[in-house]
């Protein structure tokens, strides 16, 4: 599948491989890290951001594409709804059917609450399903939750909310055990010891995995459990606006059936937003590793209802997205490929950065190599990229490692005739994760009463940069915490009349702040044409 030019260039990678094998490239000093970030990380590009003119975060900057959705009108502006005609009446409404939503549902159900999951795509068609690399937890001798804590804080540049970090690392071993007891199959040695690896920025090998189907394994198991418990799910049913009661407390949501295009009213005592990330907004024109429905809907709905954003200006660009073949452009090359020993190499066959820097630093270094140093490899679509020398993995760990430890990756490339065991692959950073979101406390609560947030839609846990494996952990830890709290708390909540007044107020506020717009949000689904306009 590689072009003749690329095959020529691969020879340079092969030529330097023997001398690179077994030699660690030096890590950057804290100063060097700082410099490369400021100069090359997209988060530091001022033109990619805008200051919000209204709402709880008035005056703070967020990515342009997100600002456009936050400063937009509701889908319900000209829709007449009778809020007294309730279609679903439950204790806990969970919006989003990924890992955070499913784990929240299980815990809320355990509290005896009547639960409804409303989800935009199918249950489980979510970022969680795609997570490959693994999930962190400090459960091995030689490791400790305190060491985990320090890694999380350092990864997040010490901006993380401490109480959230301590909840995260404390609940981690128990979360793995919970999954194990539900029957998730983790990679283990014959004596039961978990097979664990490093991730960028970890001080201990604490990444647990299920081959490179870690997220899929977790999602299929907890989804199955949601079905076993008989929890009600409505699919292809996106929430488009939260409902509040007259005291401004969360009390349900308006759901939109994507197929019949009808609205339904879901009334609930407590609401959990678990709508995941924002990759499909393609910040600064980047490709994305995210699933089709990752359009920041939860941030938009929560913000309109008065919840506060945290770290919304920090985005994770995964250093290794697929740059070639074009059919997989933007898809993820899991960090596990680097944890297993593959290293980034430029057009001359030289390694230019240590392969396990934190993601932001690694991504910035790759952008520098392509943009400034002009040492990238040009692909047929015009995108520049660097090599990731995957054959090193088999040289380090023995033949067969790639098929055994990263079968999903191997298969993805093989489908397009690239054998990553023998040939290096081409990578470039891809928009991967929303570091920030709606601010929560350790129970997943926002400052809007009865409104909880969990998973990628929440902010604070990871500060302004997340480490690999802490997101699968966070969605389960805070999914379960939110579910449990919202489930128990729902029993004390008295159902009141529903209202959309906050949406009207938001529209008024747009006017008052001089924001003139026809934009409508939440986005729900992206619209792609793959360049059809230019082909006509």
């Amino acid at each position, binding site marked *: 599948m590689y072009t003749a030019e690329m095959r020529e260039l691969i020879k340079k990678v092969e030529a330097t491989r023997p001398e690179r094998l077994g030699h660690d490239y030096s890590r950057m000093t804290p100063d060097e890290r700082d410099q490369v970030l400021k100069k090359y990380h997209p988060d530091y590009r001022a033109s990619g951001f805008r200051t919000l003119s209204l709402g709880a975060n008035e005056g703070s900057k967020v990515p342009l594409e997100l600002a456009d959705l936050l400063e937009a009108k509701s889908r319900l502006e000209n829709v007449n709804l009778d809020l007294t005609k309730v279609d679903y009446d439950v204790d806990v409404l969970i919006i989003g059917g990924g890992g955070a939503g499913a784990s929240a549902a299980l815990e809320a159900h355990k509290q005896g609450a009547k639960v409804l999951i409303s989800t935009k795509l*199918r249950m489980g068609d979510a970022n969680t399903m795609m997570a490959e690399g693994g999930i962190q937890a400090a459960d091995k001798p030689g490791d400790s939750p305190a060491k985990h804590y*320090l890694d999380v804080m350092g990864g997040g540049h010490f901006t993380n909310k401490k109480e959230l970090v*301590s909840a995260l690392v404390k609940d981690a071993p128990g979360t793995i055990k919970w999954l194990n007891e539900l029957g998730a*199959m983790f990679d283990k040695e014959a004596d039961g010891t978990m097979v664990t690896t490093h991730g960028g920025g970890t001080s201990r090998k604490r990444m647990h995995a299920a081959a490179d189907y870690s997220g*899929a394994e977790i999602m299929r198991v907890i989804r199955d459990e949601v079905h076993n418990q008989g929890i009600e799910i409505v699919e292809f049913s996106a929430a488009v606006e939260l409902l509040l009661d007259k005291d401004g407390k969360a009390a349900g949501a308006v759901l939109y059936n994507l197929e019949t295009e009808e609205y339904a009213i879901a009334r609930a005592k407590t609401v959990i937003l678990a709508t995941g990330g924002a990759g499909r907004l393609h910040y600064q024109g980047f490709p994305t590793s995210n699933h089709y429905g990752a359009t920041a809907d939860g941030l938009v709905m929560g913000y309109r209802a008065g919840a506060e954003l945290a770290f919304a200006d920090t985005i994770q660009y995964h250093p290794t997205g697929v740059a070639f073949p074009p059919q997989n452009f933007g898809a993820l090359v899991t960090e596990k490929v680097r944890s297993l020993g593959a290293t980034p190499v430029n057009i001359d066959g030289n390694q230019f950065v240590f392969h396990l820097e934190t993601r932001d630093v690694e991504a910035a270094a790759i952008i520098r190599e392509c943009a400034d140093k002009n040492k990238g490899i040009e692909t047929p679509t015009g995108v520049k990229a660097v090599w990731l020398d995957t054959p090193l993995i088999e040289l380090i760990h023995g033949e067969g490692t790639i098929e055994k430890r990263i079968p999903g990756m191997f298969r993805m490339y093989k489908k397009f005739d690239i054998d990553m065991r023998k040939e290096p692959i081409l990578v470039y950073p891809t928009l991967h994760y929303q570091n920030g979101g709606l601010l929560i406390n350790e129970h997943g609560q926002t400052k809007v009463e009865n409104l909880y947030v969990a998973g990628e839609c929440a902010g604070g846990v990871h500060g302004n940069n997340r480490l690999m494996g802490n997101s699968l952990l966070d969605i389960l830890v805070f999914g379960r915490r939110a579910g449990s709290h919202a489930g128990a708390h729902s029993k004390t909540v008295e159902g009141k009349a529903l209202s959309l007044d906050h949406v009207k107020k938001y529209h008024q506020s747009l006017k008052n702040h001089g924001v003139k717009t026809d934009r409508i949000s939440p986005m729900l689904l992206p619209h792609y044409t793959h360049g059809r306009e230019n082909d006509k």
Partner: protein
Amino acid sequence: MSDKEMVDIYILGKKYPVPASLTIMDSMEYAGYQLVRGCGCRSGFCGACATVYRIKGDRELKVCLACQTKVQDGMYLTQLPFFPGNKETYDINELEPTADTMGRLYPEIYKCIGCNSCTKGCPQELNVMRYIGYAQRGELEKCAHESFDCVMCGICASRCPAGITHYQVGLLARRLTGKYIAPESKHLTERVNEMEAGQHDESIEKLNNKSVEELTELYNARDIEK
């Protein structure tokens, strides 16, 4: 028109010219569809995009994942966004990891006629017939490993004359294996016990009380496991 190489494809019988470099999923969007169903991860992990196709002049019906397959000239396409499949509900804590359990919940596995249609259709190249065989014999661990890369797209079930929902059988085998057959991780049990006894609370509390400067110093001096 650009100089891209184009091919003709047929979506639900209607012809559209699309660039030959696109995946089936992208080609549908290029043709002007906005996908609502049949699209999830776009990376071959969620099984949402099972698609049935036939190439003009060829009689055989083929199946694939739309996000992982390139278009071909003369491709007649239709999607399989929801295929009804049977899932039994159970309490995992009350099951035993045996052939009996499999047979009680999914008795249809014994009706397999060995036609191998399931295996031929699997976009993950799993040996589906074989993992059903393992399930019949109660070799659950083998069934679990053989079915591990299943994305639950449902293609196998759509072709099975015996009405088996293979992916649910595989999932049950995996859960039983993960819970009952795989060896216990003693270090995990021990750490969870320590956590419950509050043994790590103090060390974390200490870190919680440190300033950013102190944390930074500790962080930069931490030793890193080889």
